[in-house]
Each structure stands twice: as C-alpha cells, then as structure tokens.
C-alpha cells in the first residue's frame, strides 16, 4: 500500500474504496461489542458466513463485524443495509431464515424485529426504535457502519478529512476553533478543552506529550471502551489534530487491561494509520511528526487521576503526586508539558473541525456544548449506550430512551458519575444533565455512567457499596483517604447491620467533610460524595436503619427476616428444595417453616415461591 502524502492522494484512495464497495449489493453487519459477544454473536457470524458461502454470495454481500451499537440489552444485533433493517436477539438458528428472506429476497423476518413495549408494534428500521429515535448519535452513530479493524471503512465515511484541513492551519487557529466550539473535557471535570490545549502549547519546552485516557475505572460505565473498540480511528485522528495544535510528537493511549478488545483494536488501528502515513514521520507531507503508543493499565481506579496515570505510564505505582496545584500541562509525563484528554473528548475533535465550531456550539445548552454518551444501566428497561445533547433531562433519558423501570417498579434514584458522583432522587428527574446542574445536585457528570435504581435498591447499601469499592481502590498514600474511607465504611456497615446509634450520622457527616477537604487527590476529595448525596436525599432511609432497625428496600441482610405466611403456603416443597442452607422444613401439603437460626437470608425461597407465601417482615 502506498503512503498518502497529499489531500489528493487521500481522496483518490477514498474513491477507490468506494468503487470497490459498490460491488456489494448488501451489507450485513453483526454487532461485535462485548455485550453481544456474551450473547454468542461469534457463532451467528460463523453461521452467516457459512450460509453466504453456500449460496455463493460472498462477493455480492459484505459481512461486517462492527463495534457496539449501544442497544446491548437486545443483542446480538444484526443490521442489513442499504435497507437498514434492524434485527435483534438473533441466534444461530435464525440465520437461515434471515438468509432466505432478507438477503436473497427483500422480505423481513417479523419475529426478529424490535417490538415497541407500549404500542406492541413491530419496528423495522433502526432510526424508528424509540431507544434510538430520541438520541443524537454524533459519536456512536458511525460504530454500526465501521469495521473497527479496517481503516478503509473509516476513510470512506470521511475519516481523516479533518486532519487534512487542520494541517494547513496555524496551530493557534486550531485552538481558537476548539475554544469557540465550547468543548469541555468528557472525563468528568469539564475543563474547557481549548484552554487546556492553549496552556500546554504556551508552556515552554521542546518535548510535549498528549495522552488519551481510557482508564475507564468507574464501575457501570463503558462508553469509552465502546468508542475505542468500535471506532478507534476517530480517537486517533482527534489525537493527531490535538498534537499538531499543541506541538507534540508523541502520544499515548492508556487503556485498562480489562479491555483486551479495545487494546487490540487500537493497536491495529495505529498500525494501519502508520502504514498509510497518517501517523509517523512527515504526516500527509506536512513535515509534522507524530506517533502513538498503547500503554496498558494494571487495574487501578486511581490511575484515572491524571498524575497517577502519569506515574503509571512511567512504570511506577499509580500514586498521585503530592504537588496537586501544579498542572500536568506545566509538568506531566517525565516532567514535560502533557495534555491528557478523555477518549470521548478526542473523538469529538474531528467532528468539530469537519462541521465547524458554530455547528457544535449550537448543540447542547448554555454552558455545556455538544453531546454526551451515557451508559444507561441498572434497573432500566433498555440498557445500553445513549448519546444525547447536553441539557437533556434525566426523565427523557431514563423514561423515553430507557423505556422506564424494569418490571413496572417505582423509580427511586439515578446514580451518576461513578464512585465520585452521587445519587439524584425522583423529584429531580427534570434536571437537565450538564456539568453545573449535576454538581449543584450533589452529583457529577463523571465519565457518564448512569445507574438507575428502583424501590428495591437500598441507599445505605449503595453508599456501602461505593465505600467498599473506594477502600480497595484508594492508593493508600494519604491518611484521610486511606483511614477515612475505611472508617466511613465501618460506620455505614454498622448502620446497615443494625448497630447504628443516634449520633452516628453526625460523625459520618463530620468525617465526610474532612475527607473531602484534606485528601490529596481527586479520588479522596470526591470519595464522600456517595455518602453525602444519599444522606442529603435519603436521610429517612438511614434513620429507618438506625431507629427502627429495618431496611425498607429489603437489601441489608442482617435486618431482614423471611417468613412463610400460613394462609398462602400450599406445602409444595419448592422452597425446601431450593434453600441452599437447608433452613426450611415441613411435610408435603403442610405449612413450611423457616428456621431463623440457620436462614442466611439469600431470598431464594421468595423468588421460587409461586404463591407469594414467603414474605419479608
């Protein structure tokens, strides 16, 4: 393959691929995201390939494995273009039918279509599904069209066009464009990206670095992974543009080791870009040199913090540095000016260059521009990745796109921002989602996890969960974070196990304030947020645990007591069979009894009982 040296080269290349692609009459795309992988998309693909071979269609129908489509709830997903038919929950045995009806003829396989749970209507096309209809998929939209390990697919979609544009501009002009677009860091802090770039550019120094932060440690968030996995070139293009503007020649993509597919796809993408001359020496004949290396994280949440990430990149323990007031744009990797941005931020850059800053500026609301990807998970109907303009309300996201709560339960709260964020209660559902509003509500944007909780979720337990997470993830360097989180967890555990006292909540609040105030890095400074926000909105639940020794949601095990209602029990024996602890006794057709001394409160009996005889007291 020849290297691309000029704009003309790139266009010729694009035309050539287009021509090659035009011989395909149909394109069948299977979603290859990790969610769909879990649903055996690989077998579906193998079967499809076999069927294509059998019908001699390999040269007429293209078979693609794309990145995540976002609608992971209903995987594996198969789409057929140009008609744009959207099949969901496809299994191996459905393949012959798809082949016969949709590929050989232009018919539709009814039972694989998405069914609107409200209207009970079948939906044929992707854009018409309510989950997708209300979204604005600027970043994720291309995931379905691109095979992540084929640079050709990205280039056909107009890829690297922004890079060509940029290389002719003076660096300051590029920074002005990014500043004018109003793009803010998507990793959670929301710092204006253009200004960060400017700081880094203006810091003196021969060597500068750009880093893409894909250490997505927030449990419950996976949008960065899906972007890097599904469309790695958009991130790489953004990084090249940023590096050109800042004056850097070396970039790093820092990926969690839990994301092997993202590592692999990014690695392949970098290799392909190098081959085409889009990375390396003298990019597109401009004289600008830039290369990217992948660095795998070792599994530490704290490495999402920029100085800890740098320590990790330098091959040390991921401890944040003590001089927190010194910004990484002044002194970062190896003491050189370093610009760290999140995956999503980088992926936005080519879009802004291509469409102009004004276009980007008018999406979103007053202070927050553009779109944001959220991973909508938990007790919600349509789990998956959701991309909406900033300022969309929580209600729209959870109820319109997410389809409401699972099993018709009542919505209780939504947790945003991961372990550093907080819970937003039901009466704030009309809150527009942007950086400032979420902060004011005691939570934060974070990288975009959105965990929906219903009436069966205990807020004390949620606080306990996050403290437990942070206790393990704290690096242990500073006293307030190491000892403080441990003590907060002790207190919350006491409450959840019925040992809380009247003044416990005061101590908890006092301690939370100090941990927030005095911790060394961002992890500790925000560690108390899950506690503070649940205390703010759900204080009555804490008090219930302390005063009445009851867990209203039925989660905190030591406060529970399962009993069999004599009126309802038919003596069927199902509960006796299922109980892993042999705690239930009773003769057939007679009322069964739970031995409270043995019962471990696992709740298996309640789940299995057909007569609703097992009740929580």
């Amino acid at each position: 393959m020849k290297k691309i040296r000029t704009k003309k080269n790139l266009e010729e290349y694009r035309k050539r691929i287009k021509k090659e692609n035009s011989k395909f009459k149909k394109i069948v795309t299977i979603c290859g995201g990790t969610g769909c992988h879990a649903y055996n998309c690989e077998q579906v693909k193998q079967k499809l390939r076999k069927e294509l071979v059998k019908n001699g269609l390999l040269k007429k129908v293209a078979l693609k494995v794309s990145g995540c489509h976002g609608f992971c709830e209903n995987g594996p997903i198969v789409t057929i273009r140009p008609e744009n038919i959207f099949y969901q929950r496809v299994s191996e045995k459905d393949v012959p039918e798809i082949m016969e009806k949709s590929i050989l003829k232009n018919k539709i396989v009814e039972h694989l279509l998405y069914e609107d749970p409200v209207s009970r209507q079948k939906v044929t096309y992707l854009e018409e599904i309510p989950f997708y209809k209300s979204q604005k998929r600027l970043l994720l939209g291309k995931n379905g069209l691109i095979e992540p390990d084929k640079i050709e697919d990205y280039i056909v979609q107009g890829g690297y066009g922004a890079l060509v544009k940029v290389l002719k501009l003076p660096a300051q002009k590029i920074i002005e464009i990014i500043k004018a677009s109003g793009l803010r860091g998507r990793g959670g802090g929301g710092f204006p990206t253009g200004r960060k770039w400017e700081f880094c550019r203006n810091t003196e120094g021969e060597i500068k670095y750009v880093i893409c932060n894909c250490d997505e440690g927030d449990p419950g968030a996976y949008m960065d992974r899906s972007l890097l996995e599904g469309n790695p070139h958009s991130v790489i293009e953004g990084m090249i543009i940023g590096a050109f503007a800042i004056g850097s020649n070396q970039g790093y993509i820092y990926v969690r080791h839990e994301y092997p597919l993202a590592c692999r796809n990014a690695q392949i993408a970098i290799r392909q870009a190098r081959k085409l001359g889009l990375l390396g020496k003298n990019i597109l004949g401009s004289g600008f040199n830039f290369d990217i290396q992948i660095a795998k994280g070792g599994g530490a949440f704290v490495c999402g913090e920029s100085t800890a990430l740098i320590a990790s990149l330098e091959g040390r323990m991921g401890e944040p540095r003590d001089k927190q007031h010194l910004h990484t744009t002044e002194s970062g990797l190896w003491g050189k000016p370093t610009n760290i941005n999140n995956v999503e931020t980088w992926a936005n850059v080519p879009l802004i260059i291509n469409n102009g800053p004004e276009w980007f500026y008018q999406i979103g609301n007053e202070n927050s521009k553009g779109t944001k990807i959220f991973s909508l998970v938990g007790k919600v109907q349509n789990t998956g990745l959701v991309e909406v303009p900033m300022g969309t309300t929580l209600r729209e996201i959870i109820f319109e796109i997410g389809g409401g709560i699972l099993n018709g339960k009542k919505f209780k709260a939504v947790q945003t921002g991961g372990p550093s964020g907080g819970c937003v209660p039901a009466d704030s559902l009309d809150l527009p989602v942007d950086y400032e509003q979420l902060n004011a509500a005691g939570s934060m944007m974070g990288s975009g996890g959105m965990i929906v909780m219903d009436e069966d979720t205990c807020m004390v337990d949620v606080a306990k969960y996050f403290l437990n997470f942070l206790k393990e993830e704290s690096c242990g360097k500073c006293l307030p974070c190491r000892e403080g989180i441990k003590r907060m967890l002790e207190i919350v555990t006491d409450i959840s196990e019925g040992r809380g006292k009247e003044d416990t909540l005061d101590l908890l609040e006092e301690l939370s304030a100090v941990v927030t105030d005095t911790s060394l890095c961002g992890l500790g400074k925000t560690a108390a947020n899950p506690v503070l926000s649940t205390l703010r909105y759900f204080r009555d639940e804490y008090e219930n645990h302390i005063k009445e020794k009851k867990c209203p949601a039925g989660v905190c095990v030591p406060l529970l007591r399962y009993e069999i209602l004599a009126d309802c029990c038919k003596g069927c024996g199902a509960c006796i069979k299922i109980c892993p602890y042999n705690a239930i006794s009773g003769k057939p057709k007679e009322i069964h009894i739970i031995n409270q001394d043995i019962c471990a409160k696992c709740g298996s009996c309640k789940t299995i009982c057909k007569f609703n005889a097992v009740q929580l007291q």
Partner: protein
Amino acid sequence: MIVFDTTLTIDGIKVNGKKGETILEVAKRYGINIPTLCFVENLPSYGACRLCVVEISKGKNPPILSASCTYDIQEGLVVNTKSERVVKARKILAELLVASAPNVKIAQDIAARCGVKEVRFKMEDNRCVLCGICVRMCHEQMGGEALGFVGRGIERKIQMPFNKRPKECLLCRGCEFVCPAMEIPCQGVKIPGELCGRCLRMDEMPYCCTLGSFGCSCDHNPLASSSK
C-alpha cells in the same frame, strides 16, 4: 544572602519567602507552628499525613485546604493556619491517626496536641503510621533503595521485597533512626550478663527487616504477635 522575592500573608502577618519554598518552610521560619508527621527537614516532602493542612485563598477563588508541606508559595497568597475549618480537619485527622495506631507514641502526642479527647472509631493496633520517612531516608539520603511501599489502599505496608533483605540494603539503620513511631526498648539478641551488642552482630538479626521493628507482621518481629 537569601533573596526574598515573594510576599504572602500567613495568619494575618505579611511574610517573605523565596520562590520554590513551601508554605510550611516559610511558616517555620517565622515561628508559626503547624503540626506535622511525615515532614522531616532535608528529606523531600511527601504530603501523606495531611496534618499540616492550612486554608489557602488565592485571588477570588473560594479558600481551599491543602497540605502546606507541598504547596509552593506564590505572590499574594493568603494563608490561614488556625481557622476553624483547619482546626476541625486537623482534629479528625489526628483522631483517625491515633485510632489506627494507639500504641505509637507520636500518634498519641499529635492527638493530644490537636485536642482529641475521645476516639470515636474502633481502635486498631498498627505499629507503622505509613509516614514513609524511612523510605525517603533509604532512597534519598542513604542511596540504599531497599525499603519501599507495597500493596495499596488499606493493604499498604512498608516492606522489603518478598519480605527479605535485598542486596541493596546497606544495614545502615537509617530507617530505624528516622522512624517517628519507634520508641521501643532494645530487642536484640541478648546473652545474660552482657550488653545486647546487636549492633555488632547484625547478621544474627532476623532478615526480614533490619530490626524486625517495622510494623511488619512476620514471626521475627517482637511486636508482631500483638498486631494482627
């Protein structure tokens, strides 16, 4: 002669300092007392214990708490070392410290000085307060680089690799010398009627750490049986 080029305010007093100095250093020079644990003169500051937090106002930004041992002075900073917020934070930090290591003398001293009267957390019995002074001493001053932090979070410990004395260890005992938590009687190998003489017989010492006194929980540590 030292050239002072930066002026800032600490507790209402205008003070002068030189670029690159930290707030703690300037405050010390002016006789303003800030409690510390992990700070030792002539070793690089580390910012782990956070006991030296002060309230810092910069321009119009709302005041923040930050450790004074790592904060470089800047022109026009307004620092408060005795505000209510600082005193309260310090007191809780001291309480956290003494709750984790109640039998360490320095932890008790700090708690008393910060006005801790009761400890509301469950008492533990750690011997090491993880101030890291020994690690810095070993690495920066002695050039031994034998000791280090191991593990993370609540599992964090100061250890030698694989709990064995590596060849880098010079047996200089600098670590023992600087340890603020080490006020314990001599634990050497004694022969009746003689002075312990362990300094002459270092080779007989348990090999996990120079003196088996580093809060490690191996069998050789005379303190280990009570901790953990």
